[in-house]
């Protein structure tokens, strides 16, 4: 079966995110004064073959823990869904 996993990675709370701050600044100059906070993360979409959703999740967890995120500075979340044939963004 084919799965699509999304690993979303952010800087941990408490670590200053200069890029987020810069975007917040530009949004403010554009007139969006309602913005309170901006954080910028990575979204890594991985299509993979696995026996079931659990196995897919386990593999993604390992990829994220070992390679995709740096545990010192980053936190991540994993979402898995079965890939519908032909569906593609």
């Amino acid at each position, binding site marked *: 079966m084919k799965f699509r996993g999304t690993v979303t990675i952010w*800087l941990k709370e408490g670590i*200053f995110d*200069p*890029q987020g701050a*810069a975007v917040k600044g530009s949004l403010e100059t554009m007139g969006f004064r309602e913005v309170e906070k901006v954080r910028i993360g990575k979204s890594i979409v991985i299509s993979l073959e696995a026996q079931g959703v659990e196995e897919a999740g386990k593999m993604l967890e390992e990829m994220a823990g070992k*390679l*995709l995120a*740096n545990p*010192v*500075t980053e936190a991540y979340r994993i979402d898995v869904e079965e890939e519908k044939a032909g569906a593609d963004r």
Partner: protein
Amino acid sequence: MRFGVVVFPGSNCDTDAYHAIKDVAGVQCEHVWHTTTDLSGFDAIVLPGGFSYGDYLRCGALARFSPVMESLYGFVEKGRLVIGICNGFQVLLEAGLLPGAMLANDVLEFRCQWVNLKVENNKTPFTLLYDPGEVIRFPIAHGEGNYYAEPDVLDELERTGRVVLRYVDGSGRPTREANPNGAARNIAGIINEKGNVLGLMPHPERCAESILGGEDGRRVFLSMIKSLESGALASR
């Protein structure tokens, strides 16, 4: 005495380090391809600057999985010298040989410029030819040199004299303006507990000859040579 400069496919300061060690400092030096697994013939290893594997995910993240890194752990165990410059520093952090991590420069830009550094600890094999507290000039060239570690880790580094180089102004003060990338406590270079692995963002190999605008960097390599010659490490 033999130095080895590791070559990852995307290293680009490998020949510069090689030149500084072999032609300027005058000791034997060889390139070490990243698939090499035997480092036994070397006394010191340089992880040079560049973009080891393109660094598309995080600087140094992919290099950690290269074969040469496996053997580097043993090399470090044995007390031999390892210096990671710029991308090499990032690789050492990712590999867990030094604590902390690198974030993007707070200016959100790549920065290539000269900086002033203070030698905070000259009792290391990499800095023994500098005066204590000496202010020196090195170039930097990186987009991610904003050193980060948890406060207790930073305190521990400070307490044990493991902050070796710090960004300072001309008179040696670690001001905000003197910090080119937002690094915690203006940290530019740190050493491991054992004292044989140094990571630094500035490039000593780019300032080893006066024609390049300064030669403060040469003493990093000469210090390493001197400490290897004196066998100080072997006897540890």
